[in-house]
């Protein structure tokens, strides 16, 4: 085994030799960074799946394992805070792999001077979120960095869960004709965050949709074996998630603008800022790609769950244009929904 770590870059990282904000956006730059820096170093069959979680087999038991870091700004936003985001996010990463989330860990990196009262609010939210999701926080760590060296607080959560069924949930199961379902309206979390960002504050009546999806996932797995792929579309929005699927499964995706639920205030905010709702982050949304025979049944089941009341079928898988996501627009045209290139900048002019 090589003792030296040789960076192998098949092509220049788009001429950037420094990390940019865009590398953390969940779009093309992130994908490039993973492909060119992380994968070559840690190459193994688990990692190369590039799923939201890894499934390892220990003595015949399938254990799902995931990790995620939370650096959201602002840390308190309409509908929640960084704490519950950290719990729900990790729970969801396990759930979309078909796992039953059980235990999580939390690592805190706190900036010197951060008010302990704020920390208490965050921790209390995490306690409630764990209770709501049915997971137990079993271990943790705390580090403090000097003032100015960290932005208030960052949280990393890792989680483990058990897969106690044999339903394979992976891009390889996705077939032309499969239907794409979503449990509710998109764009809420990203816009809730942006509304509080300095420089572009605006008043809006929406809140982040942060929520644990494990019970919803459990419900649909109980009524059908034909759930082929799931994802919670966070950074990069539903576009990034569907593009990743199109590429890893090498199939075409077609989604229908008329069916995608977008709340009016989200539409308005996106118009104002020049953003496309398809790329805006969500924190309580589930995309499920399922066989067409079971689609209606699964939709009905989703709608019975509080987190799925506005569930819809928003598109389907096709063998045409593999690797590409197409949107059928409101006025009937077709256009490509490309992967997000970098950080979506609020468009002004």
């Amino acid at each position, binding site marked *: 085994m090589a003792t030296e770590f040789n960076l192998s870059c098949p092509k220049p990282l788009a001429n950037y030799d420094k990390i940019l904000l865009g590398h953390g956006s969940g779009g093309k730059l992130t994908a490039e960074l993973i492909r060119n820096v992380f994968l070559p170093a840690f190459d193994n069959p688990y990692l190369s799946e590039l799923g939201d979680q890894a499934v390892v087999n220990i003595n015949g038991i399938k254990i799902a394992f995931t990790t995620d870091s939370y650096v959201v700004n602002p840390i308190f936003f309409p509908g929640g805070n960084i704490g519950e985001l950290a719990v729900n996010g990790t729970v969801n990463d396990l759930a979309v792999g078909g796992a039953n989330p059980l235990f999580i860990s939390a690592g805190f990196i706190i900036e010197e001077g951060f008010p302990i009262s704020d920390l208490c609010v965050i921790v209390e939210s995490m306690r409630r979120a764990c209770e709501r999701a049915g997971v137990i926080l079993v271990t943790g760590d705390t580090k403090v960095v000097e003032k100015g060296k960290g932005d208030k607080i960052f949280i990393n959560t890792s989680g483990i869960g058990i897969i106690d069924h044999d339903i394979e949930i992976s891009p390889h199961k996705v077939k032309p004709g499969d239907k794409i379902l979503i449990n509710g309206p998109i764009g809420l979390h990203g816009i809730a965050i942006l*509304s509080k960002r300095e420089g572009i504050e*605006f*008043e*809006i*009546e*929406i809140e982040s949709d942060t929520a644990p999806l494990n019970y919803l996932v459990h419900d649909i797995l109980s009524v059908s074996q034909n759930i082929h792929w799931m994802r919670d579309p966070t950074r990069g929005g539903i576009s990034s998630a569907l593009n990743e699927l199109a590429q890893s499964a090498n199939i075409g995706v077609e989604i229908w603008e008329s069916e995608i639920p977008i*709340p*009016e*205030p989200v*539409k*308005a*905010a996106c*118009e*104002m800022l*020049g953003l496309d709702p398809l790329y805006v982050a969500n924190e309580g949304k589930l995309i499920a790609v399922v066989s067409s025979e079971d689609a209606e049944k699964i939709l009905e089941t989703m709608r019975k769950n509080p987190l799925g009341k506005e569930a819809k079928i928003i598109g389907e898988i096709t063998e045409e244009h593999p690797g590409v996501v197409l949107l059928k627009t409101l006025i009937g045209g077709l256009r490509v929904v490309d992967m997000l290139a970098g950080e979506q900048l609020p*468009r*002004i*002019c």
Partner: protein
Amino acid sequence: MCLGIPGKIVEVFEENGLKMGKVDFGGVVKTVCLEYIPDAQVGDYTVVHVGFGISKLNEQEAQEMLYYLEKMGFLKSELGDQE
């Protein structure tokens, strides 16, 4: 270059000598400078560009242009009910 969005003026006030207002863009409310539309009032619609209202939208003209084809005799009343 013209990211101008129409919104409804829901409040008018003065800030540091400038006429300002709160404009509602279908659920998003933003503070906007209304110095360039001095006769604008609550209830009026305005096109906002980079935080400034640049025109007061004329509803009558808007209606007329929407029914342009019909008026010119080109179309029957397909434009009647829009869903």
